[in-house]
């Protein structure tokens, strides 16, 4: 700001200018003055505590929701084509049922194999148990004639009494 002293106003002399320059510019504050204004301002909604707690709470809730949604989606995707899920379905096509049977049989064989491997060192009969399980499965397939007589021939071939001597080289049996 500047004084744009106008034409019409008389000019102060030096003494008058000195008097103006000597005027006190400040006055001390009285006690509680600021508090009164702050109190009024609070009534107007100023100085509301703006803690970030609600933001943290919101962020935590959002994280939980995202996590739960992710977990649910993952579970759904994992179960969608699972063996268990397919077994519960009643509207499978014949092709899907063949596929299901193949997958279940493979899983069955794998389970028997892993069981035998896992328990061989503590249970000498584990291999035998696994073999019998496998045999039972083969019988089931044969009984139902699911493989056009192939499993019947296989079970015959796998009969202990008919199995070739131990000294003979072991032949791999392909199940599925």
């Amino acid at each position, binding site marked *: 700001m500047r004084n*744009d002293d106008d034409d019409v106003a008389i000019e102060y002399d030096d003494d008058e200018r000195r008097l103006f320059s000597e005027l006190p510019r400040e006055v001390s504050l009285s006690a509680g003055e600021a508090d009164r204004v702050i109190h009024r301002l609070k009534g107007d909604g100023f100085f509301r505590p703006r803690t970030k707690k609600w933001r943290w709470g919101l962020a935590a809730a959002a994280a939980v929701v995202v996590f739960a949604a992710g977990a649910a989606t993952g579970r759904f995707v994992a179960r969608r084509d699972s063996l268990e899920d397919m077994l519960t379905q009643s509207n499978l096509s014949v092709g899907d049922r063949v596929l299901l049977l193949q997958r279940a049989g493979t899983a069955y064989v794998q389970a028997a194999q892993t069981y035998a491997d896992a328990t061989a060192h503590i249970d000498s009969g584990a291999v035998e148990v696994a073999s019998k399980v496998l045999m039972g499965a083969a019988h089931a397939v044969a009984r139902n004639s699911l493989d056009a007589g192939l499993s019947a021939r296989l079970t015959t071939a796998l009969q202990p009494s008919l199995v070739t001597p131990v000294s003979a080289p072991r032949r791999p049996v392909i199940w599925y």
Partner: protein
Amino acid sequence: MTIVPLPFDPPDTTLIRRFLKGDERAFRELYERHTPRLKMTVRRLLGRLGPDVDDVVQDTWLAGCRGIQSYRGDAKFSSWLTSIAARTVYAQLSRRNGRETDLRDDVADVNVGAPASSVDLERALAALPDHQRVVVVLHDVEGFTHEEIAEQLGMATGTSKATLSRARHRLRHMLTKGVTNAER
């Protein structure tokens, strides 16, 4: 809530920003920084002491805070506050228009014959008619231009100039002959 310390002697804009975020300490510092001068200006504009001064100062701060979004920072915050105070005082003085002569009874006379002092000037200012006192205080003490005064008080620039001229004549007269004698 984490308390962030205020930087040493932060500028007004920093304090305003923090005040708007709800920092009470920032407002308190702003208040304590500007109110001593604001209060003196209000007292001078009103031409007297009394509870009116504190009321106007409080109203000025409240109006300032409510409209602080309009403060763009292109002028000093103290000048911005003074403008609000001037409008508040002028509105108050306008409301009681016609009673201003009564106020001069409260004003002590100038020491006639002795060299004038700033106290005499203060008395002479207080004895001026309200509208003249407001203009002379804003122009000659606070340093506002006629354009700024005209905008603040809602008058023409020429009116501000003419009012200042009359006020200066009257002041000079009072400083040399005394408040009471100058009225005769």
